[in-house]
């Protein structure tokens, strides 16, 4: 058995398990070699606002063009019949783009060199929710994701202003049709309840007046870009949170940014996402003060959070439940498993209750203990067993022929460069069980790690079920991944 007592001296794994999607022995080793504060600073130091993964081709398409394509596909589906006389299945552009968008982001989470940026992008997606199911104009969701990545640890004030004019948000919360004559309250209500103040800090009248202030903000039908229609704006006097004036949407945002609850609400959510499910009022107030007095810059508050005693307390290790994205992306990353086709991973996230770009409602994913129900716990175990069965390295190192041929258009298997022999590092291969093959070798991410290091990499605390470290490495990895503790971070 592994002695867990020694682990208490190692905060590197804990930091990476919360700030990334999970870390390999090499990644943990690199952080272990540094001073803890320096490691936190490095996580926050260099970042680029662009994704590494190439954007889908259609991101520039306007909604009008997309509507034409969609109608053409529907017409085609009606006309064409297969040999059996049944209507042919024609993939409609919106569904196809939605699939490509989700695959694109999951790919980015897997290949990124700055996983904390992706974590924060996901954090903002869960704060300023918008869903494809409602928006149905996929390029807008792509652009919103770009905005979240650009401000991943940028500036919350700037982000809030941008979100209020964000086309996906304008569609999602019905700002698009909100006009002076009849303002739509949907965005105003969620702005106050979920994005800034939280329930109990405003009245129904505040919602109605805020809704009036945002009237006239819409999107251009042809391009899908933000547009301000002054003639649709209610320029009248409004009273909002005790102040009166002929407010515009920007005025409402400015008033909300002056309200102390806004920073508190953001810090409450950060705390729950990164530190603990149990709120610590004093610490959240301290972090909120840092956020507010620092002009809503995100870096100082993230830094203070990762350096906080509560975060660093060894008792807090393994007290958060991995989200479906954590579990899926983290497991693929940890095992170094090549997954050229991401659709299956996305489908698993959906089954587990977290389909990217489709939060269940405007409040986003509840997370925490609600990730684990009788249904999702069983599905998580099924997913992990499938991963384990798919993870042995072929005995013919570097031979790619046993990989199944690409059947789908987006299976982008890396083709060997011109004139280069197809010499690749050994890669795990599907269809050979990690558990049963005693000669099994692990992929490059885990190969060479001793049994104790393997268990410590995979688990945040002592396993619940027996993990026998005397067994073959493959069997140890399998046992650790199926242990309930693997669900924790």
């Amino acid at each position, binding site marked *: 058995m592994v002695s867990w007592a020694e682990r208490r001296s190692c905060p590197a794994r804990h930091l990476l398990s919360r700030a990334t999607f999970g870390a390999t022995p090499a990644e943990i080793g690199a952080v272990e070699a540094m001073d803890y504060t320096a490691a936190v600073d490095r996580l926050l130091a260099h970042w680029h606002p662009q994704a590494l993964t190439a954007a889908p081709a259609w991101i520039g398409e306007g909604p009008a063009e997309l509507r034409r394509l969609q109608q053409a596909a529907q017409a085609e589906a009606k006309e064409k019949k297969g040999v059996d006389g049944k209507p042919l299945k024609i993939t409609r552009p919106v569904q196809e783009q939605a699939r490509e968008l989700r695959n694109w982001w999951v790919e980015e989470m897997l290949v990124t060199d700055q996983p904390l940026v992706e974590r924060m992008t996901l954090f903002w997606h869960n704060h300023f929710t918008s869903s494809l199911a409602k928006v149905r104009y996929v390029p807008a969701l792509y652009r919103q994701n770009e905005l979240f990545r650009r401000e991943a640890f940028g500036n919350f004030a700037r982000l809030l202003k941008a979100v209020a004019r964000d086309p996906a948000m304008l569609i999602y919360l*019905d700002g698009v*049709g*909100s*006009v002076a*004559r*009849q*303002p*739509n*309250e*949907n965005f105003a*209500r969620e702005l106050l*309840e979920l994005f800034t103040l939280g*329930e109990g800090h405003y009245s*129904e009248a505040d919602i109605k007046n805020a809704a009036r202030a945002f009237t006239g903000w819409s999107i251009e039908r042809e391009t899908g870009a933000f547009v301000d229609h002054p003639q649709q704006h209610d320029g009248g006097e409004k009273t909002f949170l005790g102040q009166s004036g002929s407010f515009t949407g920007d005025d409402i945002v400015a008033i909300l940014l002056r309200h102390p609850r806004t920073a508190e609400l953001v810090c409450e959510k950060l705390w729950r996402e990164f530190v603990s*499910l*149990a709120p610590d009022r004093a610490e959240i107030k301290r972090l909120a003060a840092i956020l507010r007095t620092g002009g809503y810059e995100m870096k100082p508050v993230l830094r203070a959070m990762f350096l906080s005693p509560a975060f660093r307390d060894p008792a807090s290790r*393994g*007290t*958060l*439940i991995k989200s479906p994205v954590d579990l899926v992306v983290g497991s693929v990353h940890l095992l170094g498993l090549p997954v050229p086709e991401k659709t299956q991973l996305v489908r698993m996230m959906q089954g587990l*209750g977290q389909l990217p770009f489709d939060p*269940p*409602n*405007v*409040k986003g994913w509840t997370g*925490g*203990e609600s990730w*684990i*129900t*009788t*249904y*999702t*716990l*069983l*599905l998580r*175990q*099924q997913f992990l*067993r499938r991963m384990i069965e798919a993870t042995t390295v072929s005995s013919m190192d570097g031979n790619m022929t046993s990989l199944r041929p690409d059947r789908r258009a987006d299976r982008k298997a890396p083709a060997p460069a011109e004139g280069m022999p197809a010499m690749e590092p050994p890669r795990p291969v599907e269809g050979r069980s990690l558990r049963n093959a005693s000669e099994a070798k692990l992929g490059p991410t885990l190969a060479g790690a001793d049994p104790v290091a393997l268990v410590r990499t995979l688990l945040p*605390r*002592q396993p*619940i*079920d027996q993990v026998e470290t005397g067994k073959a490495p493959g069997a140890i990895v399998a046992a650790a991944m199926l242990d*309930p*503790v693997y*669900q*924790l971070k």
Partner: protein
Amino acid sequence: MARILLLVELKGGNDGLNTVVPYADAHYRQLRPALGVARERVLQLDERVGLHEKLEPLMESWKARDFAIVQGVGYPGPNRSHFRSIEIWDTASSSTQTLSEGWVARAFEHAGRPKGPGVDSIVIDTNSLPVMGPDLRTIVMQDAENFLRQAQAMKDNPLVSDGGNPALRHLLAVRREVNAAAAGLRDKLRAAPAPAQEYAQEGPLGRELDLATRIITAQVPVVAVKIALGGFDTHANQAPTHERLLGLLANGLATFRRNMVAAGRWDDVLVLTYSEFGRRAKQNASGGTDHGTAAPHFVMGGKVTGGLHGSYPSLADLQDGDLRHSVDFRDVYSTIARGCWGQPVSFGQRQVQTLGFIAA
């Protein structure tokens, strides 16, 4: 004998005014000049109100007098947040109180249900709050065969400790629940006959009702099964969406009724719809409706006293543009807790107004 509650959540806030339509009221036409349901598209129930024509499949039940419509259901101090309001409905709290246990679980607080292996309620949806609580053993599943197969692969170890970690405690508790529930369900569900009439396959509702039917015909001793139909948050371009949803709901429930009758179990079940709120009386500029308050809800079952119950909220006496409720939702729950399960529960009401929709 205790009856089984089939709880049907209409997610997003169903528009009660276009479900049970006050077709004869001039105010209705004024409030909804474009969105109002035309008189000829209403199935008249009396001289004042009628069902939207898409609910036609439910007329069989209406004529058999086992379909009750409780009008104007709501609560004082209505909250218009989806999340807060559904929490109020799910836990039977007042609007100023936050409770963490569901109302069905609360109804069994002093009932001394067995604690060992087994299952008391099954949720075929993602929101399980109404049945969550220490007094009910609840499981969440989407499909029976998958559930049983996966449960078999996850063995339990009763001797482990969570070391004071709440997340781990939760994980281990769920694991134990799965094992206990699977033990009780395996033989029964595998032997359950297919429903007499197949459910329509559009959307997940048919699949949910199919599993609910099998659970009930297999004599699994549950007190409640929960399903849901989503998409009712119709802020914009409401009519086509709402009509499609009403059609799905009516078809599904009509088929469920026929299946229960065929299996000889219609007297043992009670169907209840609920939703976080109704919608604003006045239509909005986007061809939709915003979050409102009170709404009518459906109760069906072999022992239900059909007809209209409660009174339709007045459209001439709105409060901030919203309907005033005439029936407190906790009275609906109290009536069901007593009539279905023999549990006298008041849900914090000083005086319970028992409603007449369950035959004595």
